[in-house]
C-alpha cells in the first residue's frame, strides 16, 4: 500500500505513523497547497466556480467512499442526504438565525441522524439491502423536499443567504473558494486518518469478509452504523456548502441522478482510497462540463440538434462509466499509483 522509496526505513513508530513520510512527499504536498491557494488569483471566474463545485463534490464523494469504499456498503441515496444537509443548513441560518459556523456541522449531524433512521432497518440484513433502503430514502426524501412546501418552498426553490463567519461574508466566488478549500482539506485529513484507526480497520475488515470480521470480535452492526453515520455527516456538510454557494436550492438538485453521480465518482476514482474520491470528483465535475462545451460548439455548427447532443452526452456518460468498470475496474487512483511506481522503478521496472 504505502510503498516507500528505496533507502527510506522506518525506525520508530512515530516515523511509521507519519502520513507524509519523505521530504519529496512533503515538498510536493506543500507545492500543491501553494498552487491551490494561488489558483483563484490566477484563474478566471468560470474556472474558480468550477473549482468550488469540485471541492464540494470532493467532500461528498469522500463521505460516500467511507461508507462504500471502507465499509463496503452501497448507498444510492447520497444525493438526497446532501439535500437534507442543504435544506437544514439553509433553514437554520435563515429562520433560526444560527451562525453559519455552527449551522454547518449541525446540518451534518441532522443529516447523519436522518441517514441512520433510513439505514437502521437494512443493516440487520446482510447483502444489498442497504442499497435498496437508501434508494427508498432517496425517493421519500425527495418527495418531502418537493411537497413539504411550508418549509422547503417546494419546486419554486428556497433562497439561501451567503454564509457569514465572524462578520466576514463569503458572497463571491473568490472568498467562497477558500472556505470550501479549508473544509475540504479538513474532511480529507479526517478521512485519511480514519482509515488508519481501529474504526477504519474494522470497516475494512467488514468489507473484505464480514463473517471473518465478526469472528475476530468486530461488532458488525456498530461499525456499519458508524460508517453510515460518518458518510451521511459528510453529505450534510457538502449539502450545507452547496446551499450557501448556489443561494437557491430546489429539490431537482438532489434527485437520484446526483446519487448516481457520487457513486460514479468513487468508482471512477477508485473505491476505498481518499485520493481516488478526489480524482473521481474532479472527473465527474469536469466530464459533463467538457461534454457540454463540446455539444455547444457542435450545435453551433449544426443548429436544431441540441436535443441530440444532450442525449448524446448521456450516452457518452453511461458508456464512460461502463468502459471504466470493464477496463479500469480499480479506478484512476490505481492508474496514478502505477504511473508513480513506474517512475520510481525506472529504468528497472521489474
Amino acid at each position, binding site marked *: 500500500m504505502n510503498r516507500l522509496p528505496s533507502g527510506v526505513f522506518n525506525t520508530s513508530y512515530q516515523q511509521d505513523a507519519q502520513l507524509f513520510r519523505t521530504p519529496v512527499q512533503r515538498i510536493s504536498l506543500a507545492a500543491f497547497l501553494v498552487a491551490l491557494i494561488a489558483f483563484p488569483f490566477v484563474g478566471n471566474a468560470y474556472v474558480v466556480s468550477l473549482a468550488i463545485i469540485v471541492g464540494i463534490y470532493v467532500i461528498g464523494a469522500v463521505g460516500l467512499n467511507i461508507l*462504500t469504499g471502507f465499509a*463496503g456498503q*452501497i448507498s444510492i441515496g447520497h444525493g438526497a442526504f446532501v439535500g437534507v444537509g442543504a435544506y437544514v443548513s439553509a433553514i437554520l441560518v435563515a429562520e433560526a438565525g444560527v451562525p453559519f459556523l455552527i449551522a454547518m456541522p449541525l446540518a451534518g449531524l441532522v443529516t447523519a441522524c436522518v441517514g441512520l433512521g*433510513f439505514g437502521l*432497518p*437494512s443493516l*440487520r*440484513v*446482510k*447483502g*444489498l*439491502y442497504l*442499497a*435498496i*433502503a437508501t*434508494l*427508498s430514502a432517496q*425517493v*421519500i426524501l425527495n*418527495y418531502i423536499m*418537493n*411537497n413539504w412546501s411550508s418549509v422547503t418552498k417546494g419546486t419554486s426553490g428556497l433562497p439561501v443567504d451567503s454564509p457569514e463567519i465572524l462578520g466576514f461574508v463569503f458572497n463571491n466566488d473568490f472568498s467562497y473558494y477558500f472556505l470550501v478549500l479549508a473544509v475540504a482539506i479538513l474532511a480529507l485529513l479526517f478521512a485519511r486518518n480514519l482509515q488508519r484507526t481501529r474504526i477504519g480497520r474494522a470497516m475494512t475488515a467488514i468489507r473484505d469478509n464480514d*463473517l471473518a470480521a465478526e*469472528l475476530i470480535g468486530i461488532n458488525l452492526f456498530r461499525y456499519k452504523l458508524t460508517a453510515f453515520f460518518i458518510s451521511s455527516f459528510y453529505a450534510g456538510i457538502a449539502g450545507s456548502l452547496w446551499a450557501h454557494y448556489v443561494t437557491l436550492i430546489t429539490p431537482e438538485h438532489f434527485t*437520484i441522478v446526483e446519487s*448516481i453521480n457520487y*457513486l*460514479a465518482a468513487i*468508482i471512477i476514482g477508485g*473505491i476505498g482510497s481518499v485520493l481516488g474520491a478526489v480524482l473521481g470528483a474532479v472527473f465527474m465535475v469536469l466530464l459533463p462540463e467538457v461534454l457540454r462545451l463540446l455539444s455547444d460548439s457542435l450545435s453551433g455548427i449544426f443548429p436544431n440538434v441540441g*436535443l*441530440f447532443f444532450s*442525449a*448524446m*452526452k*448521456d*450516452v*457518452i*456518460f*453511461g*458508456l*464512460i*462509466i*461502463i468502459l471504466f*468498470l*470493464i477496463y479500469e*475496474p480499480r479506478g484512476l487512483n490505481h492508474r496514478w499509483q502505477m504511473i508513480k511506481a513506474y517512475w520510481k522503478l525506472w529504468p528497472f521496472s521489474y
Partner: protein
Amino acid sequence: MDFFIQLSVAGLVIGSVYAMIALGFVLIYKSSSVINFAQGELLLIGAFLCLWLTVDMGIPFLMSFAITLVLALGLGFAIERLFLRPMIGEPILSVIMLTIGLSIMLRGISIIIWGTDTRTFPEVFSSEPVKIGSINIPEVYLWSLLLSMIFLVAFSLFFKKTRLGIAMRATADDQTAALSMGISVKRIFALSWAIAAIVASVGGILLGNINGINISLTQFGLKVFPVVILGGLDSIPGAIVAGLMIGLLESYSGGYLDPLIGSGIKEVMPFVILMIVLMIKPYGLFGQERIERV
C-alpha cells in the same frame, strides 16, 4: 363502492405490469446476483420498438408485438454478452454500477432515436368501455390483465416443467453444483437477461397502450424495488404476488390519500412500504432466509 372497484381494477392492471417487470428482475438476481437498474430502460425500449414497428413500419399490432419480443430477446442476449460477461467475478458494487451506466446509456440512445415527446399507439383496443355490473372498465385494462396473466402463467410453467427452466432454477440455487451437472451457467445468465428484456417489453407495450409512451416510463424500473423487497428478493411467486399488491396499494393511496395529503403520494407509498417491510420482515413474504455457515 364503485370507486373502490374501479381503483381495484386499475391497481390490478398496473400491478400485473409490475409483477412482470419484477419477474425479470428476480430472474437476473436469482441466477447471477446482479441487481439490474436498467429494467426500466428495457421496458421503454421494448415499448418504443413495438410502437415504431406498428406506426412507422405499418405492421399489424400483433405481428409487431411478436417481432418486438424477438428483438427484445436479441437485446437481452447482446447486453449480457457485451457488458455483463466481462464483469463475471467482479465485486457486486461494480456490477450494480454497470447496470446504472447501462441505464443512462440506453435512455440516451432512446432519446436520440425516438425523442422525448409522448407518443401513443393507434387504437388497438376499442375505446368503448366494457360494462360489468355498474362499473365501466376500459377494454385495454382487461386485455392487459389477461395478457399479463397469460405471460405470468406461461413463465411459471416454463420454470416448473421445461428442461431449460429447471436448469435456470438450478443455477440460481447453486452455480457450482449446476456447473458440475453440465449446465452452461453462462448460457443461463444470457437467457435470464433475454427473458428479463422480453417481460419488460411486454410490460412496456401494455403501459404504452394505456398511457402512451414517453421517457418517463423508465421510472417503472425503480418501482420494481418495493415489489421485490416485499415479495422476497429471490422469489418468483413473491414477485408476482407483491407486484399485484403494490399495484393495488398505489391505486388505493392515489384514490383515497391524494385528496388528503396532496398529489404524488402514490409515487412514494411503495417506498414507504419498502422501509416497513425491511424493518419487520426483511426477507419479504416469500424470500428465502439466508443462513450462513462457515
